[in-house]
């Protein structure tokens, strides 16, 4: 490593676009397709995620047509859906279940796990901790291509004659194990399991890389307590993923055995299609335990990165330090730990021992405390700020609002006594779509708007961003808020139609409203798509630090090459939230500015640190130099 001094960052700006350190001979394939550059891989995840999000959204609109307008003639969908539209111009009930299943699978795994973590963990971890790339660029590349392969399998399953998996995204056996129970449990389910196995491989390759990079590749001075909250969030997310995804793999493997090799892990006492099956001694509940041991942490795998992104964006655009930095880390840590011991709250009424229900209820409601702390901290961060409503900020505020609205209904559902009535009704649908689906989706959108300048070197159009935000924000509430009422009225989820029941006879008006709002919200996403692709090529050129943020990624050139920084990686001297510090010249001090340069704004204990800056800095060089 070359010599360095504390002013390295100043050199950085002088030789932009002239990458002397990391100049490989690269061709098109190695630069854009099989790239090992974390930024390119992040973009690959993002584009694939956007593709899946669009598909998942379209699927949901198709089944919303059925639910909102049950009498509508869907003949016009025949060119696309073919035999899945019946003679009478209706959606086939089994295809309805397939739509629900694939919507869930796609959104949870392919969009909000791969699309969100894959994009932003990849993009931001090396840039924000000050690393040239991930610990293993090759594994990182494999991570994307396993995801791509997984996507291919899942996508293919949509076109099978027997349809894709249709037993719900939770694929509870015996339904998912027996092709005679539902057509989708044939080849569709097989492809689902293969796709998920590959997905888990991808997720593990990515997760291990994220963890290793955060632990080992932080730049000089970037201690754990100086990490931006985004990195903390990605770090916890990766740990949760590495610990929980293998359990899903095990669950899926046993299901494959039951389906194909005649074992009885989950199957017992089944009489179907006119014959008693030989399976004996299995437990359907076992699968649910295994599934939710991943399934619940998965909620936080989806949510934590979004919370991390919005913490960063809210602090930046409020021009204030995030309130309670350590409390934010603590609550994320606490949430990460608790997320492993609350899974059975999805199973209060499955026949599980009621005592187990009591324990899980206790643990579940405890998780509300760190979540509440996070909301209070966000609100306090806004207090006495100087708020810039960039599109990223708007989406982050939307996230906090959804997290609050959806989180509060979790207190009902976590209470096993109340859950008896609400379980598997639209109340649950409303709850998790707000708290996890929409909140995470908004976190992802916020991240795209905020880091687009760093990804593509250009700005997205803000006005289109505002329009996109307001239609989506109001639209999402119009879709999911009415579902609370429908759920309190007892309407069960995954119902093709409610007209068979007198009890569920009402609410055609609300269901129609929900469907119209869903169509409107999906339409608004095309504004985003236009903005995204248009700005990528024709957007205004981005300044080096468009949001006046403090973190390291904004010290890179406008279009960072592979290796991120030209010359030395900047050292870090302070935490990432020195916004509006009293006495400072500007309302932000980037992390790479040493305290010795800002005597006017230093707090007393920070003046002490000046001495360490020089002694530490030079000491580090001596140690480094002696190795070479």
């Amino acid at each position, binding site marked *: 490593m070359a010599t360095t001094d504390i002013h390295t960052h100043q050199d950085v700006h002088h030789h932009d676009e002239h990458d002397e350190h990391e100049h490989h001979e690269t061709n098109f394939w190695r630069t854009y397709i099989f790239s090992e550059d974390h930024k390119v891989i992040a973009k690959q995840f993002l584009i694939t995620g956007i593709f899946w999000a669009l598909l998942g959204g379209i699927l949901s609109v198709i089944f919303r047509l059925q639910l909102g307008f049950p009498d509508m003639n869907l003949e016009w969908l025949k060119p696309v859906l073919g035999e899945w539209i019946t003679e009478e111009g209706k959606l086939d009930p089994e295809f309805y279940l397939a739509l629900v299943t694939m919507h869930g699978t796609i959104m949870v795994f392919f969009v909000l796990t791969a699309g969100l973590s894959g994009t932003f963990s990849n993009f931001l971890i090396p840039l924000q901790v000050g690393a040239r790339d991930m610990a293993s660029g090759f594994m990182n590349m494999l991570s994307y291509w396993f995801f791509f392969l997984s996507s291919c399998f899942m996508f293919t399953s949509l076109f099978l004659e027997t349809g894709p998996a249709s037993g719900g995204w939770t694929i509870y056996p015996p339904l998912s194990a027996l092709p005679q129970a539902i057509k989708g449990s044939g080849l569709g389910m097989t492809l689902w399991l293969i796709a998920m196995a590959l997905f888990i491989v991808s997720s593990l390759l990515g997760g291990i890389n994220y963890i290793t990079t955060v632990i080992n590749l932080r730049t000089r001075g970037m201690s754990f307590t100086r990490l931006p909250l985004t990195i903390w969030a990605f770090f916890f997310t990766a740990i949760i993923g590495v610990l929980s995804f293998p359990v899903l793999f095990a669950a899926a493997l046993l299901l494959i055995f039951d389906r194909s090799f005649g074992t009885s892990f989950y199957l017992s006492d089944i009489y179907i299609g006119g014959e008693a099956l030989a399976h004996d001694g299995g437990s359907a509940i076992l699968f649910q335990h295994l599934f939710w041991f991943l399934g619940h942490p998965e909620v936080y795998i989806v949510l934590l990165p979004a919370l991390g992104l919005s913490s960063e964006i809210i602090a930046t655009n409020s*021009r204030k330090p995030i309130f309670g930095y350590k409390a934010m880390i603590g609550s994320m840590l606490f949430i990460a730990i608790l997320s492993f011991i609350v899974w059975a709250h999805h199973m209060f009424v499955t026949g599980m021992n009621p005592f187990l229900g009591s324990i899980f209820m206790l643990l579940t409601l405890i998780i509300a405390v760190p979540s509440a702390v996070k909301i209070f901290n966000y609100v*306090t961060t806004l207090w006495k700020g100087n708020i810039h409503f960039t599109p990223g900020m708007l989406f982050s*505020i939307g996230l906090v609002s959804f997290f609050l609205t959806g989180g509060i209904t979790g207190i009902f559902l976590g209470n096993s006594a109340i859950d008896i009535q609400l379980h598997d009704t639209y109340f649950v649908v409303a709850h998790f779509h707000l708290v996890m689906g929409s909140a995470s989706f908004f976190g992802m959108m916020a991240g795209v708007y905020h880091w687009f300048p760093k990804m593509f070197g250009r700005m997205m159009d803000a006005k289109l961003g505002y329009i996109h935000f307001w239609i989506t924000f109001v639209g999402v509430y119009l879709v999911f808020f009415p579902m609370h009422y429908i759920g309190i009225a007892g309407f069960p989820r995954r119902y093709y139609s409610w007209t068979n029941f007198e009890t569920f006879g009402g609410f055609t008006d609300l269901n129609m409203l929900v469907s119209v709002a869903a169509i409107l919200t999906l339409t608004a996403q095309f504004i985003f798509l236009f903005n995204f692709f248009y700005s990528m090529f024709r957007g205004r050129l981005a300044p080096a630090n468009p949001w006046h943020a403090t973190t390291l990624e904004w010290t890179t050139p406008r279009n960072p090459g592979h290796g991120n920084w030209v010359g030395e990686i900047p050292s870090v001297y302070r935490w990432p939230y020195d916004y509006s510090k009293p006495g400072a010249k500007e309302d932000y001090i980037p992390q790479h500015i040493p305290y010795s340069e800002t005597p006017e704004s230093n707090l007393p204990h920070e003046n002490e640190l000046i001495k360490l800056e020089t002694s530490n800095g030079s000491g580090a060089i001596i140690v480094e130099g002696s190795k070479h």
Partner: protein
Amino acid sequence: MMSLIIFLGVVLVLAILYMIFRVSNLVSIAKGDVDEKGSTANKVNAALFIVFMVGSLGWFFWYSFAYYHQYTLPVASEHGKHTDLLFWITMAVTVIAFVIISIIMFVFIYKYQYREGQKAKYFPDNHYLELAWTIIPAIVLAVLIFTGLRAWNDITAPASKEAELIEVIGQQFAWTVRYPGVKDKQLGAVDYKLIDNFGNEFGLDLSDKNSFDDFKSLELHMPVDKEILLKIRAKDVLHSVFLPHFRVKMDAVPGMPTQFKFKATKTTQQMRDELGNPNFNYEMACTEICGRGHFSMKMIVIVEEQEAYERWKASQEAWLKQNPDYMKKVPNALKEAAMIKAGMQKDPGSSVAEVKD
């Protein structure tokens, strides 16, 4: 032709939108208005949050009060009253918290929007505040947890011995109910391997004497004000018994019998009078995805006075009487008892029958 016109219309609208976008873009560049934070956009966004807050909270309260009777289901069970109370207590607590936090958040957003020359307050932490809002939610949640735990423990406590035993069986895509019969009040043993396509849909084991007087029903009849113990099982895939008015829900799992005990407090007739709807019926639904016909698994539920219920039970024919072919499966030693219990042969005298048992 129509679709072509629609298509052209859509293209035209998109083209116009694109032109508007380009023009406004060029105008803003010409004006040099590239820094948005001081612009009107910032003020408009801030104001829109207030509009959104007022509008959405207003709609929320208006709808919740105006349509209360549409989205709440009348309750007809003892524990249901309790869980409903818990539900509304939780609702009160959370709505208060929700409204306060929402208002504070949106007001802050509006009040602290960007202003030229204004500097944000450097306020990185405050341990008292953080402690306060960790402890207060913790206490509130503790109260909710303990009330919930007590209710849950009561609901899931073992049923009393006198409880009325009824078995509900889920299969694709219908429910069946089996009653233990009026003579022994015990459900006969079953084995899924004994299920056949000719009549033994329960898989009744006819070597068990308790099975002789069991009878099948396609309606769920229940007595009012008496503890009921639903024994629940499934034949093929998961199902879930959902009795919305009784606040009862329990999965039906193949290979693992489950149960739910509760007490109905209102007969069907009482509920009809109360709602002023002479056609009202309690219904049972399935709430665990079970395949193509998941949405159609309905069973009518009838709650009646004790005497009417007993009369109805007594009027039902035993399954064995309806399927006399299965007499050959009854062990020889039990054949006479089976004939008597199934009501196929006159009972020579209750005392004699009991001796034979």
